[in-house]
């Protein structure tokens, strides 16, 4: 009940805007103006779905017209061929379109950039050609007449009733979608748009979230198509063009991709443009072209982005809970005597280069492990194998005795393996707080958004980042960015934390602070494995050191043992014979 009232409160402006528009609809008695409102609403619906896909997930689909067609022909065929009641047909259309969305998502998941553009474009063209050429079923350019509209008191909907229906649909969809986009779902999509690997290692299933985005966009486009077909009571293949796909994408990009109110701005501006230019089709075409050409150059973040950057608007300041909850930690597993993480016979080769060969390692909770070795020894590869970023050729990985060799990276993150990266992989456009919330992705279900915020704030305090909570990650100094990445990993409440060269690029003071922080993390009960070249740091804080050379573990033990080990010295400094042959070569 409380969540319902807060839901209503959050959307007061949306509901009042909806009511105002409905009042306007009752005031207008000219079908021309009502039609403009109707089309504006349909555009808004399409844009709302498309914003999830193109704006948040960053998948710029060029085939949405195909999904618009699926919705439209669903109502057309259901009501004319199968005589399904009109309301049922309308309700079915987004579902059928969602199924088509899965169909387009499957090949789209494997490709990026221009290839993704082609796959979606090809989908749109295939649908366009099918509805044009398969005249027996779809009527082609002749179209399908007699599509049954929904009716009120046995009378087909009047234009005004259509407008009211569309506005209600718009407000409801906005409220629901906004709720998801403001929280965990929206953050997951934005993060995978920035960096799929970092998102996957934070526990986000990139495949699943992208598919969901495709399905949501498809359902909304299908609904838009169905509304247009039913209102017209007629639909033909001329509606389904490449231009429509471009228009739907333009709605989002012009309004502001990845902005909650982008679709609104886009639908408003493009509906008005369309209305005023309808008399001059040539000019309309020309203006669209010019908009496409220059809008993104002048307003890279769309209309909403432009308004946001106005100096008059005061920035939302982030209010952190007071007092802070305790630093969240994962409940320890029952002690089975097994090591926390065990590598058994791990092997990996890239072509002929062996980067891991029969690697056997044990890691214990509360223990700081360091992995050292010369360049090219296979240290980062080993971290990538443990986190599931790359698959090992052979061997087994056991977490608390459980075989995770075949688990995906996001699955391993959920089970408690977190990491940082050698080259920073922060979500630069997001705030520090949002980065940490993405890190907590797998821990948030079952918590409210404010609880999640509280936990994230505790993590920030632990890492000494409270002052930066509301700052955009990209704008921070390098050393602080490294700490943000560490905090993001900690937010996942890991059992095992992997740090890939955490001290790289830090000054001596920052390195010392980092050392203290890592010990503190060990104190939480977390097992840490760090790859590091700074021997002062490694020898100072590690409990256990593993030395890797050309994919082979050549030594392991405590810092004292490692420093005295002749094989380690040889791997790092070479032998006297090497020196001899070097001198010989120089002569």
């Amino acid at each position: 009940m409380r969540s319902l009232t807060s839901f209503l409160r959050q959307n007061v402006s949306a509901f009042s805007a909806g009511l105002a528009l409905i009042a306007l609809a009752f005031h207008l008695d000219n079908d021309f103006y009502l039609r403009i409102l109707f089309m504006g609403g349909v555009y808004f619906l399409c844009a709302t779905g498309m914003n999830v896909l193109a704006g948040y997930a960053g998948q710029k689909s060029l085939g949405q017209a195909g999904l618009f067609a699926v919705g439209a022909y669903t109502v057309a065929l259901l009501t004319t061929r199968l005589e399904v009641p009109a309301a049922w047909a309308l309700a079915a259309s987004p579902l059928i379109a969602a199924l088509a969305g899965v169909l387009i998502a499957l090949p789209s998941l494997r490709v990026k950039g221009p290839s993704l553009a082609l796959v979606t474009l090809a989908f749109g063209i295939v649908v366009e050609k099918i509805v044009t050429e398969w005249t027996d079923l779809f009527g082609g350019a002749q179209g399908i007449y007699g599509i049954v509209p929904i009716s009120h008191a046995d009378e087909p909907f009047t234009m005004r009733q259509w407008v009211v229906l569309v506005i209600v649909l718009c407000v409801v969809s906005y409220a629901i979608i906004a709720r998801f986009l403001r929280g965990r779902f929206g953050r997951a999509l934005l993060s995978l748009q920035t960096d799929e690997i970092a998102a996957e290692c934070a526990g986000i299933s990139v495949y699943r979230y992208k598919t969901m985005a495709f399905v949501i966009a498809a359902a909304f486009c299908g609904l838009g198509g169905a509304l247009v077909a039913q209102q017209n009571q007629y639909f033909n293949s001329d509606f389904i063009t490449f231009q429509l796909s471009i228009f739907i994408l333009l709605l989002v990009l012009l309004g502001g991709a990845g902005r909650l109110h982008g679709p609104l701005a886009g639908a408003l501006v493009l509906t008005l443009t369309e209305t005023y230019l309808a008399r001059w089709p040539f000019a309309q075409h020309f203006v669209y072209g010019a908009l496409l050409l220059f809008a993104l150059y002048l307003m890279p973040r769309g209309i909403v982005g432009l308004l946001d950057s106005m100096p008059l608007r005061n920035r939302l300041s982030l209010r952190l809970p007071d007092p802070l909850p305790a630093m969240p930690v994962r409940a320890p597993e029952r002690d089975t005597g097994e090591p926390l993480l065990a590598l058994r016979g791990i092997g990996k080769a890239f072509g002929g280069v062996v980067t891991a060969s029969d690697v056997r390692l044990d890691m214990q909770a509360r223990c700081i492990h360091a992995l050292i070795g010369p360049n090219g020894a296979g240290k980062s590869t080993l971290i990538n194998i443990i986190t599931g970023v790359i698959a090992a050729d052979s061997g087994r990985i056991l977490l608390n005795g459980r075989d995770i060799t075949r688990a995906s990276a996001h699955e391993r993150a959920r089970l408690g393996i977190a990491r940082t990266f050698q080259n920073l992989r922060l979500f630069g456009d997001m705030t520090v707080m949002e980065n940490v919330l993405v890190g907590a992705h797998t821990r948030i279900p079952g918590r409210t958004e404010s609880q999640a915020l509280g936990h994230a704030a505790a993590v920030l305090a632990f890492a000494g980042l409270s002052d930066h909570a509301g700052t955009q990650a990209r704008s921070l100094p390098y050393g602080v960015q490294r700490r943000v990445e560490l905090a993001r990993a900690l937010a996942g409440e890991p059992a095992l934390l992997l740090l890939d060269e955490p001290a790289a690029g830090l000054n001596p003071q920052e390195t010392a602070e980092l050392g203290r922080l890592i010990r503190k993390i060990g104190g939480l009960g977390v097992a840490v494995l760090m790859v590091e070249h700074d021997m002062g740091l490694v020898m100072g804080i590690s409990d256990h050191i593993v030395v890797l050379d050309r994919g082979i573990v050549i030594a392991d033990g405590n810092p004292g043992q490692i420093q005295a080990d002749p094989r380690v010295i040889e791997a790092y400094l070479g032998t006297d014979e090497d020196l001899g042959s070097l001198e010989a070569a120089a002569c």
Partner: protein
Amino acid sequence: MLITLLQALVGGLTIGAIYALVALGFSLTYATTRTLNFAQGDFVSVGAFMGLAATGLVASALSIDPASYPWVYTLAALAATVAMGLIGWPLYLAAIRPFAGKPGMSWVMSTIGFGIVMQSTALLIWGPGTRMLAAPLGDGVLRLAGVGFRSQEVVVLVLAFLILGAFDYSMRHTGMGRCMRAVALNRDAAALMGINVTAVMTISFVASSALAGLSGVLIAPIVSASLFMGLLIALKGFSAAIIGGLSHPRGCMLGGLIIGVVESLTGLWSAQWREIVVFVLVIVVLSIAPNGMFGKGVAEKV
């Protein structure tokens, strides 16, 4: 039956050669700028109309019938190539330069916008109707072992393969080709080695647009030219480039020929289903080989 198949094969290779030219254009700009001209289709159709306009101009100035003088067509082809190449420069300045090297694919929208503006202007000049460009060597049919070649098919095949070969050679053996490949591999390093990267990028867009314009003039005598014909040609050229592997010029050329032949063979069975078969094929190929048939995936270093 065999004759029909061979006939379809010749037709397929001809149209495929056109796709290969367009695909090569895509490959050139992708290599140097990591962007593509999504208005390539408009460059094809406007190129055809530039050729038509040049033919008309010469014909009325000398009051001759252009169909009986092959050199008029040659002139038209040159005019279209040069004119479209020149338009490639403002295309680069307005639609590519602001977005090249930045995340997101804003250039998709900006190049489409450029194309729409260009097409609208062309529509204002030439109108939406279709026109016929006379084939330079007449409408005669050559017969070779029972298989008929239309003269224009021979012209297209010979010319296209000459151009494709010349590009292939110059990418490997000339200074400009080496510069292009250097910029493609590592833009910053190329700049540090003293290569004028902006010039290389501009040239790649000029060349790509010129190729599109030439394809328009080459195809116009076979299909009737309209300002809307370019969209599908460019889409298939794009498909050819992607399934062949965008960063692999020879793959792009082969992709074009494959798409042309598949389309032509499907046409034997049902003309309406040609596009559907081609694009379904593209989706299937990409689902199996995300980087195209010859493209290599770039493993991201983590």
